[in-house]
């Protein structure tokens, strides 16, 4: 029953990558559960963000020209054995633009994560994961103005640096539901010699299973930086010093044993951490899921 929680997470990950352009988070590993050996779950998710609400690096709320982002995200997890699960998050398409510019396209930063179940009890599992994020996205993608060719703005699809998320998560079964809490730390490195502030997150999730094929969950998460950005001139381009509080609600419906769909509403507020250096809006994402259990041969 509670294996479900692992499916619910990727779309919020996508939300994050949209909101801050490229900053990946570790939501995919933010429950205590891991996959059974040979068990696979995959999800293809689409989101579109359109907003003119921008919070500057010092937290000033601004109305800017409208920023648009389309994003297609591929997420997969596979159980290596009862304790180990490998997770891959690949933003396979990002399209960024302002209403005043042409569009730029590219892939995002791919993260490959290894998750280990520290406490095996399925009623209150605890896991830790390490997720290196590779700078596979376009670190610089200049979108030209529609009217004046010399005017351009950098709307990268990746942050240009190698970083590593470490996440500790715990979950608890509650009859037809569950609760999860987590803490995560993102060790960021450098881009062209510029060092970025590390990031950390705290969050929680509650899920219920009102009817057999349907799961509904609500999540909240805050992100903080270890200090003010030392490079405010970079603005949103590298996501340095980005902070926020996100809330989301997701409905996940299984059509059959292999296929399902998810629908997620995402928004933000300042309940935990204030908005800094981020474009934000409420929006929806839709996803198609696929899962199977690989037949495992057993020794005679």
């Amino acid at each position, binding site marked *: 029953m509670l294996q479900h929680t692992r499916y619910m997470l990727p779309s919020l990950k996508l939300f994050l990558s949209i909101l801050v352009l490229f900053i990946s988070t570790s939501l995919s590993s933010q429950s205590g559960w891991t996959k059974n050996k040979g068990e696979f779950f995959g999800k293809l998710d689409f989101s579109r963000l359109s907003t003119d609400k921008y919070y500057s690096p010092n937290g000033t709320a601004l109305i800017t020209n409208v920023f648009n982002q389309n994003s297609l995200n591929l997420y997969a997890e596979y159980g290596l054995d009862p304790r180990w699960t490998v997770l891959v998050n690949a933003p396979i398409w990002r399209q960024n633009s302002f209403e005043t510019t042409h569009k730029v396209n590219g892939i995002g930063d791919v993260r490959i994560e290894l998750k280990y179940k520290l406490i095996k009890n399925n009623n209150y599992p605890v896991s830790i994961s390490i997720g290196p994020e590779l700078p596979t996205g376009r670190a610089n993608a200049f979108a030209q103005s529609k009217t004046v060719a010399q005017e351009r703005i950098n709307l990268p699809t990746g942050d240009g640096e190698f970083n590593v998320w470490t996440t500790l998560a715990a979950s608890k079964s509650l009859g037809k539901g569950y609760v999860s809490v987590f803490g995560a730390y993102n060790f960021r490195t450098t881009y062209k010699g510029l060092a970025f502030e590390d990031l950390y997150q705290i969050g929680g999730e509650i899920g219920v299973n009102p009817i057999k094929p349907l799961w509904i969950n609500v999540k909240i998460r805050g992100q903080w930086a270890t200090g003010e950005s030392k490079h405010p001139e970079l603005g949103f*381009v590298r996501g340095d010093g980005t902070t926020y509080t996100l809330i989301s609600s997701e409905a996940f419906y299984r059509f059959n044993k292999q296929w399902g769909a998810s629908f997620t509403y995402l928004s933000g507020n300042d309940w935990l951490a204030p908005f800094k250096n981020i474009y934000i809006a409420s929006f929806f994402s839709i996803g198609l899921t696929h899962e199977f259990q690989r037949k495992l041969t057993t020794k005679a």
Partner: protein
Amino acid sequence: MKQYLFLSILLLALACSKEDSTISIPIEIPSKPTTPVTTPSNLTVLKSGKFNGANGYPSEGTAQLTKDSLDRYSIRLAEDFTTSFATGSVTIYLATSMVLKLADATNYTKLGIIDKKGMHNFALEGKPSETFSFVIVWCQPAGVKFGHAEMKQ
């Protein structure tokens, strides 16, 4: 063996001595390297001002209203000028207020588009009205102000 022991003691003593002397001598370290501002000899500076950042974006340096020996006026960003070029190009405006009102063209003159720090010169058609005393750094694609300088005599 004794020689090594003596050498070790000597090195230790020197190291301690060096450390002590370092502590006792006040060292003045400039907080930030500054770029000297020079004005060509054929230019007269009529007004100048320092840039201030806006909306969390840093803008620094000097803006000048200059006149040359042929009575040609220009807005000059000096060698020490810099702003948030990591985001792309910025557009420089001469305006009547620190708030750029793009809907009212009588309030501003577009000077040019730049994508590098340092000195830039924007020729004017004539002497600007006294009310045009603000030089504004503007991120045009996003519509966000990165800073301004108020020029005074």
